[in-house]
């Protein structure tokens, strides 16, 4: 299998218990893999652990075929309250790999293209605090896409969304996956979404994990 991440014999402990022992799996490249499992099984902890290993170039148990710079992680919780003032455009631009105060023409065009791809162009000048749940998730996605990732990891991105926004976001993810040649790992509980959109499911249970082929969705 052409994989973007290969985990072999990983043991992961937190202070009071063992989360995983001898965990091995692979994540297929350019596919959407849902990471599933009961609450508290350690999905988020596992991802954070793998990312920390990647940052420290520690490849003993987890080998990524990309660099840390090419991975974007969209965390589950972000403290964006109703009064969050910054507009969606400026928020998304944080993902751009530039240090300058002023964006050059190329960066501006890229930002505009990504905002249009994530269907945010019309509301790009609105404060993010006023955006709906679905719009916020799309803004997080836009920010991540601005960084040109090869691997995109989303943590429970649909947890607080209504039915329509959920499907809208997943359709959008499949679309950007194809357009940008991305690999997506998506932590979720939602069986409906897994059935409709996942190419693979990594099911975590009993300190171990199993990759299940859910059939090609293209």
């Amino acid at each position: 299998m052409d994989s973007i991440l290969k985990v072999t014999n990983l043991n992961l402990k937190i202070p009071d218990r063992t989360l995983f022992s001898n965990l091995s799996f692979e994540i297929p490249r350019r596919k959407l893999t849902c990471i599933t499992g009961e609450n508290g099984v350690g999905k988020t902890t596992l991802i954070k652990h793998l990312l920390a290993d990647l940052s420290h170039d520690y490849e003993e148990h987890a080998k990524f075929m990309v660099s840390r710079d090419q991975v974007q992680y969209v965390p589950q919780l972000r403290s964006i309250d109703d009064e969050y003032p910054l507009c969606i455009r400026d928020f998304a631009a944080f993902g751009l790999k530039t240090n300058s105060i002023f964006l050059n023409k190329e960066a501006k065009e890229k930002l505009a293209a990504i905002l249009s791809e994530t269907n945010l162009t019309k509301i790009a000048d609105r404060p993010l605090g006023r955006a709906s749940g679905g719009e916020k998730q799309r803004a997080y996605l836009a920010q991540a896409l601005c960084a040109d990732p090869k691997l995109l990891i989303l943590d429970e991105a649909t947890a607080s969304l209504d039915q329509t926004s959920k499907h809208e976001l997943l359709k959008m993810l499949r679309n950007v996956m194809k357009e940008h040649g991305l690999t997506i790992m998506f932590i979720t509980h939602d069986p409906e979404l897994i059935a409709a959109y996942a190419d693979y499911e990594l099911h975590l249970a009993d300190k171990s994990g199993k990759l299940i082929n859910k059939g090609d969705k293209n």
Partner: protein
Amino acid sequence: MLQYDFMRYAFIAGIFIALICGVMGVFVVARQTSFFTHTLSEIGFSGASFGVFAGISPLAGMLLFTCSSALLIGFSGEKLGRRESSISVFSGLFLGLGILFLSLSNKQANYATSILFGSIVGINRSSIDILVGLSIFLLLVIFLLFKRLAYNSFDSQGAEYNQRFNKSISIIFLIMLALTISITAQIVGSLLIFVLLTIPASAAKYFAHTLKKMIVLNFLFALFGIWFGLVLSWVTDLPVSFFITVIEALIYGSAILKEHFETYQK
């Protein structure tokens, strides 16, 4: 009034203080660390009186105290600085220490008030030079690290995972804040610097939604407060700190009113 050197210096100092607060304030408010900023200015007061007590200059004492606190908070995680109880503890402790050092060094009470409330109309050429030097240094750092500082301030969770050297950026920001407070406190006092770093930026976020507009508006609010406060103080012979605080509070009040009516109409 501008025929006097000390008034000209005060107006010039106002420009640079407004410049620094214009940028730093936007980040302080975005990080929701207004109260840590308040604590840091009290730590500054404590440091200044330690400087007097130990026989080094008040500025050196202030820099020592504020920078080491910034490093402590930076390394132990900024959450510590947001926790209400730790704010009360630090705030109270350092005010107490400040009073202790002043009493041990046998300085009169008016020295304490000058550290706390500053004396923008009593500054000399050399304080202006230090202020201008600091402003140039801070603006240069901001220019070089602008996006990283903004990402770190406006989206701390996103930056934590997706920005390299993010923790170092947090520490750099806190040191910049400590420098801002120490140097501007010599001029406007450690209490007023807290006002200028937080109130105009809190107001600006209701009027502007892009980073650049927020910074420009914040600068204008701060500058207007300082300059108009100086004029009013000149005319009435009452303390300038009082006028600056009132003007900034009025600006904030009008921002809240505007926000209230806009939400009400929807």
